[in-house]
Structures are given as structure tokens and as C-alpha cells.
């Protein structure tokens, strides 16, 4: 379809399972009836694991589910459930916590 504003070609994208049209020139976005609500719903469920992307195969197994109040996902990571983990070296304070009431 053509952009109603600048009349350039619009391309279809998939955002969290919602089809949206974006103008290749002015980057404006066109939403069909109900799509704004669908995006809002997806956003409000941000804590739930996102549906798998339609094309790219999953390179890593999905992280287990975590609650919405949990730590934010690590930057760039597609999963939710914790941003720290301490890498190879556990934080000393957490090492102690593992063994205390």
C-alpha cells in the first residue's frame, strides 16, 4: 500500500505478532483496526516470554519464566529473568546468602 502522507511504498513488519505497515520514506506507521490494542496488550504482558520470532531460529534455549517483579532482562537478551547472575564469579555477598536463613 501507499503511505497516506507522502505516498511512498509501505512495508509490512511483524511486531510481537502484530502486523504493522511502515512507510519506507517518512517512517510513519499505519495500524489496522485493533492493532494498537493488540500492541498495548503485548506490552502489558512484557513479563511473559515473547512468542518465538517467525524466521530466525532460536540460538539459545529460552530462559525459564520469571515473575514480572523480577530483575530486568540483561541488555540485548531476549529473555526475562535476571540481569546479574555474577558470571563466573559469584558475588561474595550472594555466596553468603546461599547459606543463610
Amino acid at each position: 500500500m501507499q503511505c497516506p502522507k507522502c505516498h511512498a511504498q509501505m512495508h509490512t513488519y511483524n511486531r510481537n505478532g502484530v502486523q504493522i505497515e511502515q512507510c519506507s520514506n517518512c517512517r510513519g506507521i499505519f495500524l489496522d483496526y485493533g492493532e494498537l490494542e493488540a500492541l498495548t496488550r503485548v506490552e502489558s504482558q512484557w513479563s511473559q516470554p515473547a512468542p518465538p520470532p517467525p524466521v530466525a531460529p532460536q540460538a539459545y534455549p529460552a530462559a525459564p519464566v520469571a515473575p514480572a517483579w523480577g530483575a530486568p532482562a540483561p541488555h540485548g537478551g531476549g529473555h526475562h529473568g535476571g540481569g546479574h547472575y555474577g558470571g563466573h564469579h559469584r558475588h561474595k555477598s550472594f555466596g553468603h546468602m546461599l547459606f543463610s536463613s
Partner: protein
Amino acid sequence: MTVHPLLAELALRAGARAHRTVTACSCRAATLADRPDATVVRHADTVAKAHAPGTDPAALAPRLALAAGLPDVLLAPLAATPAELHGRLVTFWPYGDPVDPADPDAAPWEAAGALLARLHRIPAPAGLPPMRGPAKAAHAVARLTAAGPHPAVAAVVGAWRALPAWARAEAPMPEPGAVCHGDLHLGQLVRHPAPDGPWRLIDVDDLGVGLPAWDLARPAAWYACGLLPPDEWTRFLDAYRAGGGPAVPASGDPWAALDVAARALTVQTAARAVTKSAAQGRSLDEVEQCLVDACARMGSVPPQLAADSAK
């Protein structure tokens, strides 16, 4: 460490137990713990524990009896009834090898999950008191508020007040309860016989009838706060499910069942951390701040009340 009379005599009693004699020996007693709520001394293959002051003998007895009758899950005591020493109840145990605190990566998450599943599946013996998890969380929060003002108190107490009354020890836990450990962490697992026997749960002080999700909630809280890596959480949860543990559905999202208890354990751990940091006159470290931040986030997401626990 100063040797107070209880500690000295506890060591003597453990020695007498270990050698079935009171004559001098060349072993040296080791103090495994000396906290206000417990003093634990090891002598050779025997461990003597002085329980918290004010421990109710009528509540400790059925807990000890359960451990004695469930040796595949809990370390069995050496004697069925407690002794009394300096006004404290004292129990005797075989020594078991703990998880090495210097090597938490070697934590037996599978064994922990499997043992809890087994514990939760046994029928609750008549007379077993309630599990003390919520009471301990309430105690931690009470100590926090008594410690004076601190910038983190509002977030921790706010998250606490949003919990249902049963999770704050202000109402009975949801029915039907299961037999729960009540205070699971990595210090509660030992191998008996040492050093390579099977893993067993220790510490019966908080054992009792309650919501089994509570026993999964501390690792769950660590995972939710971004402290426990996902694979360790998965190993623990999968082993629990493989053992037929009733606290969570056999598959799918476990959080509806875990949410309230994991919030409570996050609050409890945050409260302890803030109290401790304040007592030491230092600011919160990175890990402690993660817990407080999680408490703050809880305010914007109301607790998930599982259908049968919405009381």
C-alpha cells in the same frame, strides 16, 4: 571466638556422645555455628545443637520424631528426645558433610529438589506444628522496622504489606498443607555418612505443615532477583517436578504457585540484608540492592493469588 559456658558444655556433651565416655580425648571440638538462635558444636562424628532460647519442647518433639522416622529425606537424630542444658534444648546428630561454602557451584540442586519433593509427598503426621517460614519472615521484617530509619525500609515494608495475611504469619496457611522444611538454603544439606553418602536435609526447627511452595521460594526469589543463574534454578525445579513434588504444576509456568512465597522470601532476605548493613554502618552492596529493587518493583505488580491460596 569467646567460649561461653553453653558452648563449652555443649562441646563436652558432644564429646561424651561421640566417645560414650567423659574421659579426656585428643579430638578438638569444632564450633559449627554460634548465633543467638542456635549454637552447634561438632565432636568427631557427633554434632550437638542447642536450639534457640524459648524453643517449645512440645513443638520440637514432633519435629524430631519426624526426622527420626524419615531417614531417606532428613538426617535422623541420635536421640529421640532433647536434653536440657543452661535452659536450652539440646539435640544430638551424626556429622554430615555440608556443601562447601567456598564452592557454591557444587551445590546439589538436583538432590535439593528431589528431597523436597519426597518430603512434600508424605502424609503429615498428627500433631506436627505449622511450618515456621512466614513467622521467620515476619520476624525479619519486625527487626528491620525496629532498627530505625533507612532509605530501603519503605520498599521492603511496602512489598511486605501487600502480601496476603497468611504469608505474614497473621493467618493460618492455605489448606491443605504439606510437610515442609520451612527454611531451605544450601546450608541445610549434608551428605551422610560423610564424605560421600546421600544428601539429606538438616535443621528441623522450622519443619511443619504449610504451603510447600515456601520451600521452593528462596531459590525462586534468588532467580527472580537475577542472582541465581537460570540453569541452576531449572535444575532445582526440574528435579522437584521429576520427583512429583506437589507445590507447582507438573509443567508450564510455576509462578502462579510460587509468586506469594517468593515475594515473601525476597522481602525476608532484603529485610535481613538492610538490617545487617545498617548494623555494620555501610551501604547496601550490589546483591542486597537487587533484593530491595525487587521489593520496589513488587508495588506495581499485585501478588498472583493461586486459586486455592487467595486467603
